[in-house]
């Protein structure tokens, strides 16, 4: 395991009401694979947002690539987002763009010329099996297609860290296994992976493919889950 890419220190968070997370500490070492689990409403999505800087902790500290996330200005935050690929729970596509344009969006907004990246883009589309769907609009896609497209968009800038929020939320078992294999492949390529899921069978299936640690949120705290899974 390399140096930590993301660290949370004694982190606390609330949305203005009662404490949702308190005294949470994690270190994600470079190249590690973590699952984050817990019942619905436990705060998984919230914790991920804190990791990639979409939310600011009410107490404690978040460090990404050895930078305190709180101290970043808006431009630095944009650059941080390019180093952390995120698969959002609801995918967050732009419906007026084609699937291919959505996947290429991180390239477009970072000012790169899509024409120069055409080969990479095609390779990525075929890796997630969406080559023949690249001109479809997001609303026309099935759940599995959406999740694979979201993963493709998350990795297009070749980020060091990939954070996925319920990537197998709306897909059948077979598709969830396919997505898991993609995430494992990325981890084997050296990417740091953090996956939030309430689906324990996914975690069990991952066990014989990758060395993954499982973190569980329960009663506002984060625990390392043991063999009881």
């Amino acid at each position, binding site marked *: 395991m390399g140096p930590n890419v993301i660290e949370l220190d004694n982190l606390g968070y609330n949305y203005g009401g009662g404490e949702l997370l308190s005294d949470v500490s994690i270190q994600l070492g470079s190249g590690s694979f973590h699952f984050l689990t817990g019942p619905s409403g436990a705060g998984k999505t919230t914790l991920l947002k804190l990791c990639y800087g*979409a939310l600011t902790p009410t107490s404690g500290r978040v460090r990404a690539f050895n930078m305190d996330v709180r101290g970043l200005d*808006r*431009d630095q935050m*944009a*650059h941080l*987002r*390019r180093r952390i690929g*995120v698969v*959002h729970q609801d995918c*967050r*596509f*732009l419906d*007026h*763009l084609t699937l291919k*344009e959505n996947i*290429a*969006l*991180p390239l*477009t*907004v*970072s*000012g790169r*010329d*899509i024409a120069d990246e055409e080969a990479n883009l095609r390779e990525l589309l075929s890796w997630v099996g969406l080559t023949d769907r690249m001109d479809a609009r997001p609303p026309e896609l099935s759940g599995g297609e959406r999740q694979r497209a979201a993963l493709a*968009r998350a990795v297009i*800038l070749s980020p060091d860290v990939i954070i996925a929020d319920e990537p197998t939320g709306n897909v059948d078992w077979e598709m969830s296994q396919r997505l898991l294999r993609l995430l494992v492949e990325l981890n084997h390529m050296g990417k740091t992976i953090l996956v939030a899921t309430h689906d324990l069978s996914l975690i069990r299936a991952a066990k014989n493919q990758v060395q993954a640690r499982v973190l569980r949120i329960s009663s506002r705290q984060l625990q390392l889950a043991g063999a009881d899974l």
Partner: protein
Amino acid sequence: MTFLKALLLGDAQADRVVPPTGFTAQLTLFVSGAMAFLCVFALALSMASGRVADRWADELARAATLRINAPAAQKAAQTEAALKILQQTPGVASARALTAEEQAALLSPWFGSGLPVDSLPIPQLIEVIEDEAGYDATGLRLRLQAEVPGAVLDDHARWRRPLVDAALALRRLSVVSILLIGGAMAAMITLAANAALSANAQVIEVLRLVGAQDSYIAQAFVRRFTLRALAGGGAGMALGMIGVLLMPAASDEGGFLTGLGFQGVGWLLPLLIPLLGGAVAFVATTRAANKKLGELA
């Protein structure tokens, strides 16, 4: 320069990331077209009133004449006396008795050139040139009446002074109108840009999530509004120019109204209107975008 090029040529990919919003696009086009149209007339009015003011002011300056109607024997003495009084009068820049040749030249259109001026009882004419401040005509008349019985002051062009003032005021008003038109356009485009930014709050959020910098997002909006303002301004300017072209040509009888147009290189001036409109839209949208993006952060 590269920035201007980027703004005009743009980037097809970047243009697509923000969905077009129908009503703000039409509003911007319409407003900049209407404003450019009005601006052409305000500009034409300002230039025409400026020209009229200059011409009339010019005539005013060299307008007055003093006539000495006196028996031949007294003419020279009275002319002398009148010139002396004029020299002492505040507001008179200079006064000069016309020579016999000049007087003959003035009369020749009516009596032909062979006129024996010397043998006719023609009054002596004195040309009076005013300075900026002008002289007190009533006071001058009273004094002349007392000391030069044959003197008649003819200052017929003086009645134009209020007209010159009116023309100058009209020019000031049209300049103020142009500024107001620019301000109203800036306000409307700011509103339209704010509406477009608000309507696209979700899109902006997604763009930020995938690593877009605020400057990139702002430029996507700014470019769109600037181009629309340029296009609308160009169309409005063209229509306004057609309107001005259709005005009757300048004539002395029509005076000021028929002269409402451009002259010479003045015809190039309206071409600046769409460019200024584009600049106004650029500044207004940049400000609106920076403010809105700050709020959405």
